[in-house]
């Protein structure tokens, strides 16, 4: 099998699984008793193991396997989760990430993981001593058995559910026979006798006929319905001789979660089989396994090259143009059937349009979700207490932008943690809570997405900044004297500037904030700082939605159509011409008690006047920050979702126009840049 073609899928999916691990491990740290979380982590790890083994990345598979063993101990509640254990698991995830990245960069995914594996093994080993259980378990084996035991089909679930309603409990009973057990089938028979007394057996792994033929190892698992307590069951079965151990556990209710759980088991089983089978079979199994996984864990997804989406979108726009023509024709012909068909087509293609456009949009969550983990680690390294708050992770950005902003944001966050938040002692002395807060916030505004990194730390000491900038020859003292606070803050972005007293391995990685600034500006964005000494700083990143869908109000100015971003609009307003006042050569109106200027779009945009003056002025009240203005238009066409398009390289900066869009009829409409009109 040619594995190369799966490599991309492997890398992407591995990243996803690792991300899931990261997130859930953080979650687990907060709720150490939630077994469901462990199950989910286990599932991700397991899939990853299967995939890596199939692709021949043995180090990856080995490490995941060991990680799984630890998780297994945790989920079977033989180990209590604590920060130290999680640290080691995180370490493993780090290693895994590094290996996946190496694969992604064309490497072979090899890495010396023996140290991490050893640490993981120690956890598992430590547990055995700690619990001192009679279970003579070696890691890995229980997984196999349990997973097989816990697969129930719909019918079995139904039976269980009904019985549970009638007061029965569903138990999964795992019996391990002594190594030297001579009459295995007899022991099994005796155990089943007891089962029959206790209640009803609804499932047996391996199946009963296999058990009868003694064609199994040392253990078997049965699912029984009983009204007895787990302890009773255990005690009664233990009376049978030649048994090494008996473990009775409740089968969880079949909620939606459990269905996932069950499917997980399916999957685990599939993977488990696959790991032990030959490579070729492995491949097939794995594909099956991962597709099962995708279906269960998330909604089904398929990866598409972004270029293909572009092509699809452009083709679709062509279709929309033709649709517009068809509409016109059907109106002219007045044929009822044609009209109906075209109308239907219009509706369908409208829906299609929305879908196609949305395909390119990705929530910034995909970038944000790697941060909590990083913050945890950094906070530990720095011995600081830091709480990360994420707001607006659902804010959507075009895929092309998403791919680029990760690193700059990471850098800003590091900066906030390292330089912003003070040590707990320092915070206490200042009368602040010991735990510092970093807020990561994303939101849409106009044609931009803003991402803010706010900390309640020390703020920026502009005196230090200026002294340093002068020392480094970035500015002269004369320049420094006339600088505003804001400009001083912005010196942080000057190239060759770093305020760290000593280079730490956190933010001082040889690159300064100037790199961040450059990256963001190369995306057509900007970054600014707001800081208050002693109270904290806000780094605000403004990013364009290069290619994105925005809601606009379409308006008509004389004979031309323009789009005004809804995010800038406060409301539409109609005012009588007599109500317009003059002040300093500027027409203004009294808008709910506030005097706001009028902007005559036709004169700003030099649109030839061809309409008669009306008694009323149609206004679109827009704002930029706290400034407002009334844009004078001729009529409102309506609200619409549009695709923002650039005017191209040739017309790169046109006053008061932030871009263009193609309307349903194929015509181009320009988008008004309210930020440049309202200042």
């Amino acid at each position, binding site marked *: 099998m040619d594995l190369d073609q799966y490599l991309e899928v492997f890398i992407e999916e591995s990243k996803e699984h690792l991300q899931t691990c990261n997130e859930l491990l953080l979650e687990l740290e907060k709720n150490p008793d939630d077994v469901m979380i462990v199950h989910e982590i286990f599932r991700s790890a397991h899939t990853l193991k299967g995939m890596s083994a199939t692709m021949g990345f043995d180090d990856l598979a080995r490490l995941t396997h060991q990680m799984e063993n630890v998780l297994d101990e945790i989920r079977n509640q033989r180990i209590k989760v604590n920060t130290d254990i999680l640290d080691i698991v995180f370490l493993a995830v780090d290693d895994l990430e590094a290996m996946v990245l190496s694969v992604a960069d064309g490497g072979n995914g090899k890495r010396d993981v023996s140290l991490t594996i050893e640490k993981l093994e120690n956890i598992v080993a430590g547990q055995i001593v700690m619990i001192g259980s009679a279970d003579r378990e070696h890691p890995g084996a229980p997984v196999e058995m349990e997973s097989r035991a816990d697969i129930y089909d719909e019918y079995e679930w139904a039976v269980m559910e009904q019985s549970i309603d009638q007061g029965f409990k569903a138990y999964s009973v795992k019996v391990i026979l002594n190594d030297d057990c001579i009459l295995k089938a007899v022991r099994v028979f005796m155990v089943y006798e007891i089962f029959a007394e206790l209640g009803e057996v609804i499932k047996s792994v391996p199946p009963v006929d296999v058990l009868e033929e003694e064609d199994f190892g040392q253990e078997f698992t049965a699912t029984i319905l009983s009204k007895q307590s787990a302890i009773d069951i255990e005690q009664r079965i233990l009376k049978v001789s030649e048994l090494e151990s008996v473990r009775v556990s409740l089968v969880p209710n079949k909620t939606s979660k459990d269905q996932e759980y069950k499917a997980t088991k399916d999957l685990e089983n599939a993977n488990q089989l696959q790991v032990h089978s030959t490579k070729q079979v492995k491949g097939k199994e794995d594909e099956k396994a991962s597709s099962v996984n995708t279906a269960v864990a998330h909604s089904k997804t398929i990866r598409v090259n972004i270029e293909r989406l572009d092509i699809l*979108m*452009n*083709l*679709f*726009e*062509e279709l929309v*143009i033709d649709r517009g023509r068809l509409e016109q024709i059907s109106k002219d012909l007045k044929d009822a059937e044609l009209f109906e068909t075209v109308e239907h087509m219009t509706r369908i293609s409208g829906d299609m349009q929305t879908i196609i456009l949305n395909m390119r949009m990705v929530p910034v969550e995909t970038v944000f979700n790697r941060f909590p983990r990083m913050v945890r680690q950094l906070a530990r390294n720095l011995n600081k207490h830091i709480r990360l708050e994420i707001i607006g992770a659902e804010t959507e950005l075009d895929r092309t932008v998403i791919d680029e902003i990760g690193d700059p944001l990471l850098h800003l966050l590091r900066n906030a943690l390292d330089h912003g938040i003070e040590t707990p002692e320092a915070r206490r002395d200042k009368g602040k809570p010991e735990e510092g807060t970093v807020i990561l916030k994303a939101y849409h505004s106009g044609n931009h997405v803003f991402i803010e990194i706010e900390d309640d730390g020390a703020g920026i000491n502009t005196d230090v900044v200026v002294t340093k900038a002068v020392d480094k020859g970035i500015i002269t003292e004369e320049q420094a004297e006339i600088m505003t606070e804001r400009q001083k803050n912005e010196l942080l972005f000057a190239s060759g500037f770093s305020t760290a007293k000593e280079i730490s391995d956190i933010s001082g990685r040889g690159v300064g904030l100037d790199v961040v600034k450059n990256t963001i500006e190369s995306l057509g964005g900007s970054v600014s700082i707001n800081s208050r000494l002693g109270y904290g700083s806000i780094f605000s990143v403004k990013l364009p939605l290069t290619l994105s869908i925005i809601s606009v109000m379409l308006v008509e100015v004389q004979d*031309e159509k323009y789009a005004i971003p809804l995010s800038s609009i406060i409301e539409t307003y109609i005012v009588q011409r007599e109500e317009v006042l003059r002040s300093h050569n500027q027409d203004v109106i009294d808008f709910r008690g506030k005097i706001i200027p009028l902007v005559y779009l036709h004169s*700003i*945009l*030099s*649109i030839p006047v061809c309409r008669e003056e009306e008694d009323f002025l149609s206004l679109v009240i827009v704002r930029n920050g706290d400034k407002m203005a009334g844009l004078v238009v001729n009529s409102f066409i309506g609200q619409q979702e549009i695709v923002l*398009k*650039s*005017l*191209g*390289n*040739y*017309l*790169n900066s*046109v*006053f*008061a*126009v932030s871009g*263009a869009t*193609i309307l349903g009829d*194929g*015509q*181009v*409409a*320009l988008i008004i840049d309210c930020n440049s009109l309202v200042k």
Partner: protein
Amino acid sequence: MADNDNRQMQKVIVFELVNKEYAIPVEYVLSIEKVSTITRVPGVEPFVMGVINLKGTITPIIDLRMRFGLEQKEYDESSRIIIISFNEFEVGLIVDSARDVLEFPADLIEPQPKVIGMQEIDFINGVVKVDKRLLILIKLERILQVLGTTQSI
């Protein structure tokens, strides 16, 4: 271009502007379109007529007559927009009509004759005589000079 390999062939798109024939190397031409509705863009150079929707891409349109400082003319049935891609710029040039695709040895290209003395002389790369036709090869880099750096004509 005249210094190129003698046997090298040059393929061009031939178009007409005020009864003269001009040529653009075919490799820069993406397509030739009929004139559709052009959306005016405010505050740009007068020869930029606006933008059109070209298969989903917003494409600026330059009126070549105006760019050359020639008299203006209403667009009609034979008017065409030649979409060109040059130095990362994708623009459309409005011409009176698009005529032909011609191929000739590159060494036929002569430097612009001083006698021509037209207004658009600044925009000429050279001339070539093919059969009995005189083709004027236009200088795309000059036509597409980014706004702002353009001197008034």
